[in-house]
């Protein structure tokens, strides 16, 4: 306790050095927070995406890295409809980047009378009735100033706006629905679908439904929750993996930074540690003091890093132009993890300097003039 108090006082009395050391940690933590927030946002977006039309499950081709590359045979739909516990199943084709005036918007190819479109509330007009029509989400309509009767170009096809709907899910309200057959033609997926949305019977739980379908169709990736959702979404997969890689890199860089700063501090203060050894401090006592300073500094850095990270996440998404796909999502768990990382950085980054400080030869150091 005394060592901790003295470490705190020592930091307090060297404000500039403490700040600069903490800043190194803060940059590492800020990077981690920003990446976690972006990955969390991507995950949240993918979860909403899957709630299309209130379906319980989304079925994809296993190992498909991107919803648009998932390919499922249409024959599977009838097989699913015959599966116990499945109330309804309908195929979907997803087109990403094909609405040229809003590249981030998704065009959903769906049957207009399927259960996924039943819950759309139309603010203007009605659901599409043919291949030359498109139903537009309220967000996209507002963004592009579209009204019923206007024209929207999707994959170079000029389609007439039949209605403007609201669903309450940003990805769908910011997208549009076109005829399933047209979407197949545009995607080059004749006889195939990107995904199949499944609605389970009210008496069947989600886990029971997943288990039943998994046993019967082992080649499918069944997504029913937000944790597994990013595995199928291109942004989710790439961002979560990228975030993990970058977070590890940030961790390593942060750790090396803390260690480097701590080593410099130990080198600068070698006389101090030699003196402590000379007046009877043991190696572990000296190491504990160095470690305590490292952890305290890292905690200060972590607190600063949390703030920078939250701001940085917004900036990162803005700079990458990914605001339409991903809303940074900073959770208490992200902040807690970042704080934990801060402590770990202090411990890991301080270990080698602490060992060095504890092994200094007081005879050599104190004899220096």
């Amino acid at each position: 306790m005394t060592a901790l108090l003295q470490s705190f006082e020592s930091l307090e009395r060297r404000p500039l050095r403490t700040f600069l050391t903490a800043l190194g940690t803060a940059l590492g933590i800020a990077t981690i927070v920003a990446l976690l927030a972006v990955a969390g946002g991507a995950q949240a977006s993918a979860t909403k995406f899957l709630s299309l039309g209130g379906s319980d499950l989304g079925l994809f081709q296993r190992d498909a890295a991107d919803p648009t590359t998932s390919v499922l045979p249409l024959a599977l739909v009838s097989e699913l409809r015959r599966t116990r516990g499945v109330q309804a199943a309908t195929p979907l084709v997803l087109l990403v980047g094909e609405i040229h005036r809003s590249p981030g918007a998704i065009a959903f190819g769906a049957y207009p009378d399927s259960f996924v479109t039943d819950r759309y509330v139309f603010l203007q007009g009605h659901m599409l009735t043919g291949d030359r029509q498109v139903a537009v989400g309220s967000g996209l309509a507002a963004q592009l100033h579209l009204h019923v009767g206007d024209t929207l170009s999707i994959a170079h096809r000029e389609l007439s706006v039949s209605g403007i709907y609201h669903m309450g899910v940003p990805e769908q309200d910011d997208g549009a629905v076109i005829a399933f057959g047209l979407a197949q033609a545009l995607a080059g997926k004749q006889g195939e679908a990107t995904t199949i949305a499944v609605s389970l019977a009210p008496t069947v739980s989600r886990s029971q439904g997943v288990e039943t379908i998994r046993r019967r169709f082992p080649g499918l990736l069944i997504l029913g929750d937000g944790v597994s959702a990013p595995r199928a979404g291109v942004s989710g997969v790439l961002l979560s993996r990228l975030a993990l890689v970058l977070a590890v890199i940030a961790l390593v860089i942060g750790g090396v930074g803390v260690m480097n700063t701590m080593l410099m501090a130990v080198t600068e203060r070698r006389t101090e540690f030699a003196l402590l050894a000379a007046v009877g401090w043991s190696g572990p006592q000296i190491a504990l003091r160095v470690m305590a300073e490292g952890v305290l500094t890292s905690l200060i850095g972590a607190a600063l890093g949390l703030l920078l990270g939250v701001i940085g996440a917004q900036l990162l998404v803005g700079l990458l132009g990914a605001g339409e796909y991903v809303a940074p999502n900073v959770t208490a768990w992200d902040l807690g993890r970042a704080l934990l990382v801060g402590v770990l950085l202090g411990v890991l980054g301080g270990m080698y300097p602490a060992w060095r400080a504890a092994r200094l030869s007081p005879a050599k150091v104190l004899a220096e003039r």
Partner: protein
Amino acid sequence: MPGSRVEVERLTHAFDGNVVLRDVSFSIEPGELVALTGPSGSGKTTLLQLLGGLDRPTAGRIMVDGIPVHALRHATRYRREVVGFVFQLHHLLPALTAQENVQLPMVAAHVPRRERDLRAHELLDEVDLSGRARSLPSSLSGGERQRVAIARALAGQPRLILADEPTGSLDAAATERIWQLLAAVRERHGSTILVASHDASLLRHVDRSLAIRGGAVCEQPASNLAPPPPPATGPDHHDRAPAEL
């Protein structure tokens, strides 16, 4: 607490093949105040470090109150419980107050905070610095810093005090005050004190003197040396070349 008996037998120490101390033997009785003289680089600091357990000798024996210091693999406890160091460059920690610096050996010994505060206050009072307890070293004069360092050396209630050029950067008045303080410490605590110094004025306060020449230590009776004139009194200063032996 009585001072330590120091027995050095056939001590030899070398750095990178250079023999600094060669076959040195001497002893110091409990409670003696002994001067260690010799030119710069003669091995005074090395001898004090070996006696204090900061380094291990190449050969020979050092016994302090029966403790084989030469053979101690980890001398932490010995340094904490037996020895008190005073260095030429005081080595006070700049971020700590005078009182906190004095407490450092007690922190290592896990002395409770209240007791540490009390003892540090008493020790600073003993070196006439109780009014500067909360001062940082940067606001103290050279003489005051060295007196804090002496108080710190006493904090562990050592039986053996090793002082290495403690007045090396002080003026005559401050130097005399340090010698008087060390003599008073010996009287009050009964500690054995070995002081390495160039300053001739030290000889007026010691029981005897050991001289290092060419790596060897020889007895040099204090009475054989002409005592220097008494120093002028005044405030502590830093800028005086000491009178050398």
